[in-house]
């Protein structure tokens, strides 16, 4: 408990930030029309590929001979990049449907 209180008090603004991020996440989505559920899901999925950043940092900081780290990191980069590139592109394709016709 002591520890928890300390963490809380020390990271107060961070906790605010976390909570606000969550609220914001809810807020931006909450009034979405049904038809956008799938593209939105796909877009959010692409964003979650942000984990790629971690993979890059992993390799950049890995020693040039730490092959396990490097290989795992490489795999991570490949997976993350597929997620990001494929995710944004496929979202874009889905949204292509909503192009307004010339009226």
């Amino acid at each position, binding site marked *: 408990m002591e520890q928890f209180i300390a963490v809380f008090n020390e990271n107060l603004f961070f906790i605010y*930030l976390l909570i606000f991020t969550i609220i914001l996440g809810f807020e931006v989505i909450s009034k979405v029309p*049904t038809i956008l559920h799938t593209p939105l899901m796909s877009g959010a999925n692409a964003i979650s590929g942000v984990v790629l950043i971690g*993979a890059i940092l992993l390799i950049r900081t890995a020693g040039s001979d730490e092959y396990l780290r490097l290989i795992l990191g490489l795999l991570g*980069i490949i*997976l993350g990049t597929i997620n990001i590139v494929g995710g944004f*592109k*496929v979202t874009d394709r889905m949204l292509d449907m909503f192009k307004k016709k010339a009226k």
Partner: protein
Amino acid sequence: METTFILNLSYLIGVLTFVFGLRLLGSPDTARKGNMLAAFGMTFSVLVTLFIPMDDAPNNYLWIFTGLMIGGLIGWRTAIKVKMTDMPQLVSILNGLGGACAALLATTELLPYFQGTLEMSNVQLAIGIFALLIGLVSFSGSLLAYGKLQGLIKDSQVKLPKHGIINLVMLFTVLGLGIVLSFFSGPSTMFFIFIGITLIYGFSFVAPIGGADMPVVISLLNSMTGLSAAAAGFIYQSQLMIVGGILVGAAGTILTILMCQAMNRSLLNVIIGGFGSAGGAAIGSDSDGKTAKTISVTDMAIQLFYSQSVVFVPGYGLAVAQAQKTVKELEDLLDKNGVDVKYAIHPVAGRMPGHMNVLLAEANVPYPKLLDMDEANDILPNTDVVVVVGANDVVNPAAEDSPGSSIYGMPVLQVWKAKNVIVLKRSMSPGYAGIQNPLFFNDKTKMLFGDAKHTLSELTKEVKTL
């Protein structure tokens, strides 16, 4: 100092592109822009992460670029080649890869600890285990979801009896192991066992869920990937990963809930799942065992709104539902968007000669929009969507191709020649002539069950949001 500043600022910008990107994704008019914005922010952040100077970092750019090239190529090609109808699978597998990536990172960071070559604080350990757990579940669950959607795996092949209980037990095992590992550490074998069980749990979690519930699960797994990315962010002290991950996690969660609401189900219900694989059973099947396919109001609204030509085929059901004004309202909306709308009136539609004329006149449908059978049959092959509103016998292809049928020889509206057919009626029951209608099992046909007036007014509501 300054590089930190640049990094911080760049990540702040990245986060903001995610926030606004998601926000713009929430409205049809701006969704595309939103996606682009987020994609831009992502690229920008990745570039900054790549090239920001780091004190004595080995960099290993070769490894990195190899990974980026391979991943980028695969991602791009798959996204381009996938069929529209296979999108959900793709999203699922992509999401699984994201989860796998997070799990990989966590493993890489945790492994030295469990091998005893590195010290870690409790908090770090717990966060790492969390990232690992969630990432793994997301990975294996998404894989199974992909397999199911792609038709590689059948629900029945993976669903065990009492699956709900099995899952519950597994969940507790996984959580328990995770807590033990975080707070009391353990040997590296235990760590590997944890990984194994968690992977199996992800599989098992998705196994009993099927049919129309799949998108919900995918969305749920998606928000998990977000959370695991955030947890991984803690390891690397990256605000971008933390905030971005949490954002996706939150958005994904609310999206999951919204999707459940749209299906009139609760999330719990979906997860415990199994029962109620969304109405599929209520639908009849024809003698060849073909089943009729349904369509959602939303999908139908989009299809109508973005098509060039729509033909309504009113029948007795329109009269029973007294839906003439509602169909007219829908027509007006479509008309405004430049859709060419016509009505095809079959001579014997309804229960008295001219029944449809009376109704449509009441709704003030202008005469030039009414086509009689011959005129209609001329234009039907070039029609994007035919909406059959409570008609049945008059659109029955048996009249043309099954000599045994009691209506064989009667000229009917050849709606099946159109590009798409959507039938609005309350059930699979036959019309006046009492015979089954093969149209409902046609590949082009989708059914939307319910009272025509209700369905049509839901449709107008949906079209108005477009």
